[in-house]
């Protein structure tokens, strides 16, 4: 099995993570997905540090799904570090958040987030949202080389 990760999911809420992975699985998009439970782990993975030392940074995911409210390092900080580094700045990042009340929407767009998605409460809508964004970024969207 190749260690190449296509989707990096940073989500501290186990239920949300399960639901997200479920929705992606239904569309056959979850085979190369890595789920990390906080921002620190996401950064370790992206910059091949800590647990992920030795991994090639050049193996970039096609999409990063980032929850905003996470322990240790939050989504905004992760986004900031991704955009600040030449090696990672072009990776598409989608913010997944529970709330449209987030005071951070503007901040995320200032940091050139690719998409900002409020997770619907309703299961069917949630699945629809995750499926369509997974399909879009994994299949429709053309990555920079």
């Amino acid at each position, binding site marked *: 099995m190749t260690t190449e990760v296509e989707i990096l999911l940073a989500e501290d*809420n186990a*239920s*949300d993570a399960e*639901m997200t992975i*479920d929705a992606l699985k239904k569309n056959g998009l979850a085979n190369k997905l890595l789920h990390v439970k906080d921002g620190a782990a996401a950064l370790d993975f992206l910059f091949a540090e800590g647990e992920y030392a030795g991994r090639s940074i050049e193996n970039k995911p096609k999409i990063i799904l980032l929850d905003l*409210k996470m322990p240790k390092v939050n989504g905004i900080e992760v986004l900031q570090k991704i955009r600040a580094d030449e090696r990672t700045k072009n990776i598409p990042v989608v913010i997944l*958040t*529970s*709330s*449209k*009340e*987030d*005071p951070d929407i503007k901040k995320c767009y200032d940091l050139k987030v690719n998409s900002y998605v409020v*997770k*619907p*409460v*309703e*299961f*069917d809508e*949630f699945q629809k949202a995750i499926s369509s964004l997974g399909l879009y970024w994994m299949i429709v969207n053309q990555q920079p080389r």
Partner: protein
Amino acid sequence: MTLIKKTEELNLANKELALQNQEKEKRAAELMIANKELAFQNEEKEKRAAELIIANKELVFQNTEKEKRAAELILANKELAFQNSQKEKRAQELIIANQELIFQNNEKENRAAELIIAKDELISQNQEKERRAAELITAISDLKASKEQIIEINKELESFSYSVSHDLRAPLRAINGYTKKLKENFETQLDPEAHRLMNNIVANAKKMGQLIDDLLTFSRIGRRDLVKVNIPMLSIVKEICTELENEQSGRKIAFHLDTLLPALADNMAIKQVWLNLVSNAVKYTRLKEKAIIEISSEENGDQIIYCIKDNGAGFDMRYADKLFGVFQRLHSDDEFEGNGVGLALVHSIISKHGGRVWAEAKVNEGATFFFTLNKS
């Protein structure tokens, strides 16, 4: 004898004559002395007369001098008499002026007394003002403290809203999601009652999600600064009516829209107001065979009164004061679903615009809602 006698007689006579002569000589000497005396006296008298003439001349001169002086004195006297009468007149005038001054003095004393009273009054007013100023300063510092508190509370509320929306929605999503998965994955193993119960779980989770969203809208609009622009009211309302009508399949709803006057208001907030009012009208006319919703406006001074009238369920005017309170409902959830946030939001938005909102209704005969906004 005769001769001797004669001689004796002659002697005698001679002697007599000698005596007489002597007498006469004595007399002559005396007369000479007397004459001399007289001459002296005469001289004296002439001297005296000359002196008298001089004195007389002097007196005449003095007399004329005195007459001249008398004439002068008469003139002077006349002058003095004139001056005297002038002085008397002046004295009269002075007396009058004096009386006037006395009167003015009295007036001034009166005024002074009044001024003293006024001054006392001013002092007490001043003290009152100082006291009031001190109170105001205290009140201002209290207000400042309150304002800081409010800002603090507002911040707390904001992070509370954020928390509520973020942290309450996540478990709801899980409840909803897991129940759906349970239904999908174990469909054949569960009997119809289990399916019904799970449907209820899903429906309630969904309802709670809606409640959270509405509450957040309510608190967000309360905190948001209004951006007032000229709002073309008719096109906004038309759009909302069309949208809501499309959602209601199989219902007959007649919208009667007047030419709605434009107003100066926050576009997003006013859209929310119309959305809530029109969807209420649509909701509460549900049991009528034909729903009629009339929307109109009229000018009232520098304000516009908007009016939306329906022929729906109406409400009991006794509870009209509860109509716009958060979570207050005049119908049960079984009759008409809702969470009691919509009209509270309308009230909050209109109040923030400086307008007024009120309603008139009769049970089963429909309700009319009014609100005012400033003219554009």
